[in-house]
Every structure is written in C-alpha cells, then in structure tokens.
C-alpha cells in the first residue's frame, strides 16, 4: 500500500508554514462505459434484458483512480510515474477540474491548467484560425489573441516549409498538428501547471524549444505536475515524485527514492 516517507517533527513544523496549492482528498474516478452495441447485443438479447429487467451488462464501470490523497505546495515540481493505464492522465484531468471525481475532492489554489496536446481543434479550419480559437477558449481577449497569434505560429514552426498556417489543419502531418497544439497551449501563463507527456511531440529541434518554454512556464507557475515515461526528464525537473499503479498511490516521496523503487520493481 501507500508507502510514505516520514518527516521528523521539527521539519513538519517548518513545512506547515508552506502554502498548499493542490490537495487531493481520497479521490476516486470512475468511467462509465455504455457497451451498447459492443457485447452480446443482438436485438433478442436486448429484449430479453428489458423483459427480465437486468440492465447491468450494458454498463461497465472502470475504476481508474481508487482513493488517492496527497498535498502539493507552492514551488514544488512533482513527477507522476506509473505504467500505462495506471491513472496518471485521469488524475491530471481531475486536478485540472476537467474530470469530476466520483468520490472525494480536489482542492486547488487558483485555476490549474492542463498542458496537453489533445485540445480539440477543428480540422477543417486553417491553422491560423485554430490558433485564434484555441486562445479564445483559454480565456484570452481578442486583442491579446491578435497580438500573440504570430508568436504562436512562429514558435510552432509550421511555416518552415511554406505557408501552412493558412491551410486547413487536416492537411498537416501529425507532428505539425501536435506542434501547433502544444504551441497554443503553452502560450498562456499558469498558476498550477499540469503537463501530460507534452514534451514527447515534434522533432529534436522542436523538443529543445518546447523544453525551454516549459522551464519558463515553471518559473512563473506555483506548482508543476509532470507526467512522463522518461525517468530522466522526471529526474531533471522534479524533486518529488508520485508513483501510481492500478489507480492506487503506491509511493510518494523524493524523486531519487521513488525512481529507484520504480526501476527495481
């Protein structure tokens, strides 16, 4: 179960002065999946279920996070590690307030922002208009959007091979699309910053540029969460790490200890 580093009494007195920015209190996240047409749903089977009033096989619940609790403080950078499907991204979305927890609560200081590459954009619109739309969706004013659009296009580098910004996004390669999405998401300053594998997109040149941008964002953000499968980038950026496994918090402590335990599992 949760293995936690004990702190001695005198440091805990000093720590209680620090300002918490994110508190997760026994958070559970459950996805409900309507199987509908997926399994055993011939018309007769469905009819039989309706007649016999057993509706259960139609809905399956996936318990993605099972009671996670932790407190993050100002100035901390926290890594989230765990195997695929361990609930890292779900936890991040819950902290951002985008995925409501089924039980428990997340308390945050200010509005956390999720820096992902999956912000929905309209593929039939030009890159330029998608930039404007994405910025407006993040709550910028039209004047800010006008000012910042060339910077975003420039940062994403999609115009390196000709004027792609005015072409619909469906004509982009997947790398170009991901770069543009990252550039849009990274254009804003954030209180609490949640980064979901965002550094893995694009070619090497773009990765260097985006890592630089994330460092800048970190400097202005209160707290940073970083989800990554690369332990190196976690070691580089985070002093504290949380290890999730199967939706349960397996370990929470200094990055070195947690990473060592994670590698030795």
């Amino acid at each position, binding site marked *: 179960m949760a293995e936690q580093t004990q702190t001695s009494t005198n440091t805990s007195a000093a720590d209680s002065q620090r300002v918490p920015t994110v508190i997760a209190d026994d958070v559970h996240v459950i996805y409900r999946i309507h199987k509908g047409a997926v399994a055993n749903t011939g018309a007769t089977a469905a009819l039989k279920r309706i007649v016999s009033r057993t509706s259960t096989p139609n809905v399956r619940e996936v318990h993605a996070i099972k009671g996670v609790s932790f407190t993050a403080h100002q100035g901390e950078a926290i890594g989230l590690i765990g195997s695929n499907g361990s609930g890292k991204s779900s936890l991040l979305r819950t902290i951002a307030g985008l995925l409501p927890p089924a039980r428990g609560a997340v*308390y945050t200081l200010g509005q956390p922002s999720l820096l992902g590459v999956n912000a929905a954009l309209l593929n039939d619109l030009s890159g330029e208009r998608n930039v404007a739309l994405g910025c407006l969706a993040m*709550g910028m004013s039209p004047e800010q959007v006008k000012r910042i659009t060339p910077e975003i296009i420039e940062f994403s580098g999609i115009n390196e091979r000709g004027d792609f910004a005015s072409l619909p996004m469906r004509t982009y390669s997947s790398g170009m699309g991901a770069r543009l999405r990252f550039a849009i998401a990274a254009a804003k300053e954030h209180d609490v910053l949640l980064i979901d594998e965002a550094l893995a997109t694009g070619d090497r040149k773009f990765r260097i540029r985006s890592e630089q941008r994330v460092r800048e964002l970190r400097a202005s953000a209160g707290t940073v969460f970083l989800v990554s499968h690369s332990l190196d980038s976690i070691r580089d950026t985070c002093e504290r790490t949380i290890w999730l496994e199967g939706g349960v918090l397996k370990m*929470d402590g200094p990055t070195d200890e947690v990473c060592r335990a994670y590698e030795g599992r």
Partner: protein
Amino acid sequence: MANTAVANLHPRLTPAELAQQHGLKVANDRPPLREYTRQVWAYRHFITAYSRAKVTSSLSNTRLGQLWQVLTPITNAAVYYLIFGVILSQDRDIDNFIAYLCTGVFVFMFTQTAVANGTSAINANLGLIRALHFPRAVLPITVTLVQLQQLLMSMVVLAAIVLFTGEPITLRWLLLAPILFLQTIFNIGLTMVMARFGSKVADLKQIMPFVLRTWLYASGVLYPVSLLRDHLPGWAATLLEANPALIYIELARYALLESNRENLVATPMQLWGTAIAWTLVVGIGGFVYFWRGEKEYGRG
C-alpha cells in the same frame, strides 16, 4: 530531503480544513449563478468565433460551400410545397400558401435543428470539455447561434419568396427582429435543457427525431393548426394553441404576410404575451437547469 512534502504533514487538520485555511477551492466547483453568468459573458468572443468556425467547417468539404446555406432552405421549402401544396392541395383555405408554408418551415427548422443538435452538445464535445476550462453553457449557446446564422440566410430567401408571391413590404416586417430574438432566447434555454438530459442519457439522441417530427405536425407548419384542433377535446386544443413553436411561427406570419392577417390562431396581443412568457420561462429556466449540472459534464 527535508523539504519533501508528504501527505500527512498537517496531522491535526483534515484535508478539507487545510484547504479552507489556505483559501483553496474545490477543483470543479460550480460557481454561483451570478458569477457563472459573468463567465459566460466573458466567453462571448469565443462563442461567436466558435459558431462562425462551425458554420465554415461544416461546409468546407462541399463544392458549393456557403451556397448551401441558401440552397438547403430552398430545397426544403420546395419538397414541402410539392407534397402539401401541389399533391395534397392544402392551399384551398390559404391565400398565399407558398409564403405561408415557407415562413412556417424556416421558423420551425430553427428550433428543430437547434434542439436536435443541442441534445448531443455535451457528448459530441467531450474532447474539448476534458481539455479546456470554460463555462459549459458555451456549448449549447454555440449550437443555437450556428442555427441562427442558418436562419438569417433562410430569412433572406424568405423575403424574396414573400415579395415574389405578391405580398407588400410593410413596416411590420421590422417586428421580425424582436420575434427572432425571443425565439433565439427560447431556443438557447431549450437547448440547454436538452444538452443536460442528453449528457446523461445518450439514447435521447435516437428518440429526438420522432419527438421533433410530432412537434412539427402539432405546430401548424404545413397546414393551418385548425385542421388538427377541430378533432381534439378542449384541453388538448388549448394545449395545442399554447405550443411555443406555433406562437413564434404565427408571429412571424403576422409580421410578413398581409394576406394571412385573418387566419391567426389568436390576436397579436395574445401571441406577443404568450411568446414573451415562453421566452422568459424557458430561457431563464433552461439556463438555471443547465448551470445546476455544471459539475457533472465530462464525467464518462
């Protein structure tokens, strides 16, 4: 590392108390109604940009592109005219049947399509909801505004049809602006109700076509509503005449069609009264109802 924080740093306080002490807020808490309204207003630029983008992108793969905004209502009117005007010749009691029919079809389509698309406003945008923070009321509003743009195009077509069939231009045409404004607010309210329902019960999307078709038949779009009313018991007839879609359609006919002045289901004053009542009840009620569910949207 001494500065590493762990879960039980503050042994005396529960997480909720600690959060309160430092002024932390529940991550996906629902803001108070007034604050929520302010947030929606702050997102007005996104709403207009997003609905305009939706209109553009929905037609960007077609050859005729934006022309379809005009062609769709014309085709629609032509089909209904063929069936009800030419074949069934419903036009015996109505002087200018083609204009009568088109007014009904276009005004009703506005509500119908907004409601149909509104039902999936949340479920169709889960990606956006799980990626970005914004008041979710933006989504049903966008759905309605997309249809409003379509309606304005239809109104241009309608004006041409009405003039072409020999109706005079009068000052009453100006009444169309407040009528469509009332209908827009009504539609936004109704779309919000449907969006919240639809986010819970995805099956609703399959049922809506039938509900909407029944509504179409009850709204005096294709034939005067008296045709139905005379076959109904008293209470049902009253209900039929209070039908909001019918009210907005009749008001639009009152504004546009000089020839139809005698055939209205109620006096203009009564129509205005009912229309304003519907707008207020559904507009405000729908918004409050949608706001109360704000915490739930996005849950799988």
